[in-house]
């Protein structure tokens, strides 16, 4: 009879919100998974994998000319893009309370660097300006948001001790900036790391950075060359704290300005005017002589076919892929974090874990997707695996570090019991917070992977650019941005409802 009573008690217990949310997201991803194309279409993926692995362990550093220029350009674009974005973002942060500024920053953030690059390519061609702006514009939106949050958090007590009549600027310089400065530096360094990855990826649209040479090397099956490029890239990212000192930054900027290939040949003001005044105006409106009923009908038809044939299928594929990748990233996070946690592995195991996670999170999703695409042929699978791996490694690293400071009781269990009962329940809240924070990032990347031929919205954008239909491309980019903003709002709602800490600790 006793057990019946207990049972009744259990029935009154509702599943916790965190568990409920998890189950909901996993269920959606599983349903999506049943419908997406994940077939491996390559004839013999294994022999290609073996050739790649052989390439990975036999890096060829002899192609020095290509190697050197690719690395120098990647670093130079990153430094200049991040520096300009940092500078603009700082001033935007000061006026971030203005609604227009906030909305504008959210919008420029919501458009991926590669899409910005595709836009500027049409205006400035393959010049340095294209690359720098493609990084600087979205980054200034990101810097503005993060800097304004940092300034908000600066100690309010010191503010109250300042005499009332002190000028605004003095208050700012004395009471806010000193505290915030340290955080600015930490965050800038982190952004530079992101900038290096973004800069590398810009090569895939033709700029002379790492991605350009990687794409060639992969296409020609020169895996040893590709692995040499990547190894140097990892080393640069891994040693960023050693070479990026505040005092040296002006020198780096100066050197970058000198070495960057400006290629100003097709930079003309008429190009700029043509792009804005002509190219991006929807075609029916552009060719119409007057704004009459026929024009409007044509425009309506143009808009309808764009939305039904391109935007909608693109959006559906993007959302489906994002949700699967998000859950995949979560699952891999929970698999990866013990690899670097002293609660689970000794020094040797953790070293291996660290190397694995550094490599996985330093390789941009785009490059990972390219590799898997070569191995498995075009389907959703390469994109899902690339996004899940990269993001799982990023959050797994943060969670692993989190467990280092965890205080456990002296008689705590070990192994899987420790994992399931002690560690995961303790970090779960933080884990979900980070995962939802990455949600929007994952969606932005999902859209971009369309450029590789996966049918997300980026595929339609890339095709529109290729067909020189800039009006369509721009509208699709705006739709993508709106989709991103929607996910951002949704993510924030869920985080606040679950009372997950929304601020991400950058240190």
């Amino acid at each position, binding site marked *: 009879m*006793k*057990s019946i009573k*207990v*049972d009744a*008690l*259990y029935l*009154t*217990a509702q599943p*916790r919100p*965190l568990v409920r949310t998890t189950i909901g997201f996993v269920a959606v991803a599983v349903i999506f998974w049943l419908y997406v194309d994940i077939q491996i279409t390559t004839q013999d993926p294994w022999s290609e994998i073996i050739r790649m692995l052989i390439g990975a362990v036999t890096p060829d550093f002899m192609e020095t000319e290509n190697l050197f220029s690719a690395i120098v350009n990647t670093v130079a674009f990153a430094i200049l893009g991040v520096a300009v974005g940092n500078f603009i973002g700082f001033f935007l942060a000061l006026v971030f309370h203005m609604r227009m500024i906030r909305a504008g920053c959210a919008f420029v953030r919501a458009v991926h660097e590669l899409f910005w690059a595709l836009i500027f390519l049409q205006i400035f061609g393959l010049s340095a300006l294209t690359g720098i702006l493609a990084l600087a514009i979205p980054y200034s939106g990101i810097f503005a948001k993060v800097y304004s949050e940092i300034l908000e958090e600066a100690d309010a007590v010191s503010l109250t001790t300042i005499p009332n009549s002190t000028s605004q600027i003095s208050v700012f310089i004395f009471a806010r900036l000193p505290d915030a400065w340290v955080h600015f530096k930490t965050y800038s360094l982190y952004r530079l790391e992101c900038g290096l990855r973004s800069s590398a990826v810009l090569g895939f649209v033709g700029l002379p950075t790492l991605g350009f040479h990687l794409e060639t090397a992969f296409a020609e099956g020169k895996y040893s060359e590709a692995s040499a490029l990547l190894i140097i890239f990892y080393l640069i990212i891994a040693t960023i704290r050693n070479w990026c000192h505040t005092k040296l930054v002006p020198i780096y900027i100066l050197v970058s300005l000198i070495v960057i290939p400006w290629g100003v040949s097709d930079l003309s003001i008429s190009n700029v005017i043509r792009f804005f005044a002509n190219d991006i105006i929807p075609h029916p409106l552009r060719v119409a002589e007057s704004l009459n009923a026929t024009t409007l009908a044509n425009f309506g038809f143009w808009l309808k076919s764009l939305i039904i044939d391109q935007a909608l299928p693109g959006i559906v594929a993007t959302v489906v892929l994002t949700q699967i990748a998000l859950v995949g990233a979560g699952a891999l996070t929970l698999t990866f974090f013990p690899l670097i946690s002293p609660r689970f592995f000794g020094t040797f195991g953790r070293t291996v874990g660290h190397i694995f996670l550094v490599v996985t999170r330093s390789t941009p999703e785009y490059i990972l997707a390219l590799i898997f695409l070569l191995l498995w042929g075009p389907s959703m699978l390469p994109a899902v695996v690339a996004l899940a791996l990269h993001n799982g490694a990023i959050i797994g690293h943060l969670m692993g570090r989190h467990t280092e400071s965890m*205080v*456990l*009781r*002296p*008689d*705590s*269990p070990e*192994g*899987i*019991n420790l994992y*399931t*009962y*002690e560690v995961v*329940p*303790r970090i*779960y*809240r933080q884990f979900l917070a980070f995962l939802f924070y990455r949600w929007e990032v994952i969606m932005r990347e999902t859209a971009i992977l369309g450029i590789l031929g996966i049918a997300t919205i980026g595929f339609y954008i890339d095709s529109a650019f290729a067909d020189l239909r800039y009006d369509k491309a721009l509208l699709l980019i705006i739709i993508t941005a709106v989709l991103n903003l929607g996910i951002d709002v949704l993510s924030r709602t869920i985080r606040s409802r679950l009372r997950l800490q929304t601020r991400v600790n950058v240190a």
Partner: protein
Amino acid sequence: MGQTLFSLKNATVQYNGRAILSDISLSIEEGAKIALVGQSGAGKSTLLTQLYELSNGDVSLVPQELGLVRNLSVFHNIYMGRLHRHGTLYNVLNLIKPMQKELANVKPIVENLGLADKLFAPIHELSGGQQQRTAVGRAIFRGSPVFFGDEPVSAVDEHQSHAVLSAIMESHQTVILSMHDVELALHYSDRVIGLKNGIKVMDQSTRGMKTSDLDEIYQS
């Protein structure tokens, strides 16, 4: 008195050059019910840690910081006392959906500790006293013959304290508690060890002792 379970000889613990424990010698026999008393900072927790390190780990333990998992329920936290007795698969299944058998096992303990209505509440919804009682529940559920508690009832109200301490005493042969409430300490123990600035200043039977006998330990 039974056989000696733990014994310390001239134990000294230093931290940053400062002695936390100086020259402590004592032995603890099976069946002893011991209260550790002394001002905060006197070395009670350090002494308990020392004794715990002497054990083979088969001790029901309530550390000062409790070691509860905030996102898990009272039931799961208590169940954790017996993780080592079951296979991993069983434990994982029980984490996903509590087993009837384990619920029935845990139930008398939570009823004894006045936590029956909180069985499925996550720890972060509990008061400090309820959290302490959950940690005691985990220790009792473990079922080792030896119990170590570092201020296990400091946040529990007086009425509940008696129930909790009785439950601890009933389910363990040998008990060592660090206590700040001298009245409770004398009531439930048969031997009291007093610490002052890391030095053992008292070690005697509680028989016939009055709370005022402990005053000197608390004088600075």
